[in-house]
């Protein structure tokens, strides 16, 4: 389980005068949970958006399982095997939970306009498979009983789960979760934690941005720390916790 899944080299991103990311490199190994932490504004979500093709980068490149990603088009990134969730949940609010997950299957299915109009055998078989897989995934994340409800009617925790199910529907190699525990109470966080542990057991690689340090330290195999757009540490959780640069980034230096 030690092959490199994702390798990012020299990622740079500038917004006007702000250098949001400066020469960030990191490697994520297959099957691990990789944490990305850092103070507010450190560039965590920006890095996510670069990885998933939503922001154009200024420099650097990203390889997934040995092939360079076409970072110019998000759907190509999804097709290559990176799926993500959003910090401020972005579901298709007026579609049902099941439909949301079915949309996730889009990138792995083929039926076009003519198949749909003629209702060909291939189209019907594929459509049934999409539905079946979407139901399985809703079951997997534990909200199958809400399948027929509109996404907007789901509770906050269930919306997070639905977003994960939609991401899983794209058959990702790497699942990127952007602050999945934000705004969750202790019970919801515990349930989320067991869900992510289950993902790892099933062989998925997870990239996790999180503010809940306890969650990150308890869950992740390795953690990287960003501060002002630079990676200041990358190691196992215990080592990161003891790293003086990390402590300084979070708490500041002592007033000498």
């Amino acid at each position: 389980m030690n092959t490199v899944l994702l390798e990012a080299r020299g990622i740079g991103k500038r917004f006007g005068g702000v250098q949001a990311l400066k020469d960030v490199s990191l490697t994520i190994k297959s099957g691990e949970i990789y944490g990305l932490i850092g103070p507010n504004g450190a560039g965590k979500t920006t890095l996510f958006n670069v990885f998933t093709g939503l922001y154009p980068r200024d420099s650097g490149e990203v390889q997934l399982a040995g092939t360079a990603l076409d970072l110019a088009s998000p759907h190509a990134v999804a097709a290559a095997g990176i799926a993500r969730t959003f910090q401020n949940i972005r579901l298709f609010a007026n579609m049902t939970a099941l439909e949301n997950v079915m949309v996730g299957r889009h990138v792995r299915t083929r039926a076009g306009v003519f198949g749909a109009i003629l209702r060909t055998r291939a189209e019907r078989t594929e459509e049934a498979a999409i539905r079946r897989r979407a139901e399985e995934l809703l079951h997997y994340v534990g909200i199958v009983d809400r399948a027929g409800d509109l996404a907007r009617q789901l509770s906050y925790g269930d919306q997070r789960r639905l977003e994960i199910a939609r991401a899983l529907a794209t058959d990702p190699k790497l699942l990127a979760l952007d602050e999945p525990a934000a705004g969750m109470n202790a019970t919801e966080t515990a349930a989320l934690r067991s869900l992510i542990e289950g993902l790892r057991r099933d062989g998925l690689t997870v990239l996790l941005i999180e503010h809940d340090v306890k969650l990150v330290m308890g869950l992740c195999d390795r953690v990287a720390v960003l501060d002002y757009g630079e990676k200041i540490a990358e190691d196992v959780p215990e080592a990161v916790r003891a790293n003086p640069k990390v402590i300084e980034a979070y708490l500041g230096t002592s007033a000498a």
Partner: protein
Amino acid sequence: MSAREKFGLVLIAVALIALPFVLASAGTAWVRITNFAVLFVLLSLGLNIVVGFAGLLDLGYVAFFAVGAYVYALLASPHFGLHLPFWVILPIGATVACIAGVILGAPTLRLRGDYLAIVTLGFGEIVRIFMNNLSSPVNLTNGPKGINRIDPFQIGPLNFSASDTIGALTFSGPIKYYYFLLLLLLVVIVINRRLQDSRIGRAWVAIREDEIAAKASGINTRNIKLLAFAMGASFGGTAGGMFAAIQGFVSPESFVLNESIMVLAMVVLGGMGNIWGVIAGAMLLSFVPELLRYTVEPVQRALFGKLLVDPEVLRMLVFGAALVLTMRFRPAGLWPETRHRREMSENRA
């Protein structure tokens, strides 16, 4: 389907088949009015794909109607001396309109909402102005004079501009067109419904709901949007071909901005995204003005002995009032799509 539903469908079918003869007894004009209403239903269903499903506000939709109509006019009139049969021209018209849809769609892919509306509005006007001016140096469209003497439909010995009597029934030209339009409508409804429940239909709605999330979920938003424009445009093109044949004459002034707005109003009034709502909206906005036209004048003459308000003025008044009232009391349309209705009611709460 339950026996009751089946019975209901049979009843509707019988009513629709008998309808033109009932109307014809009130005057052939009413059959023509019905035909134009069905034509507008076709247009609205096409626009509904773009506006209702994919959420792309298109104010230049009449351009595709114009393209279809001119393709028919050029290929079946003395203008170029071409007289191709309609079953060849209608698919050509749909294809040309479809290509026009992609050409319009391509530069607007990054635009949304108001900006998209402005660009599409401009495109609609450009097409009309082209039709108006492409009469020199090569006389392609015959300019503002339009193209005359367009061939009617001809199926074997059946000429759609003449009457045929079979037994006790007289099939006038408009009645034949009515049946053809009914058939076409059925096909378009089936296509719409199937698209709505398909992988492509879900992708359209996903883009309407959240374009960024749709991208991140692996939808090629560029292609899927172009597909919406192309599908909507080909319906518009087909309706345009029918229009040219029924009318026997096309000129640029049939394709003004007002027509685009009228079709959009039908979609919005009926209920964006819901096929049945859109059909109801198109029927309502087609028939009510005609009813007024035929009733206002006699009523006024009977009451006051003279004409006080011109029916045309009243028509626009009623039209405007209907839209204002709809927006006030049923903002999602008379018969909204379930998803849309929930969205709107939440916003009002």
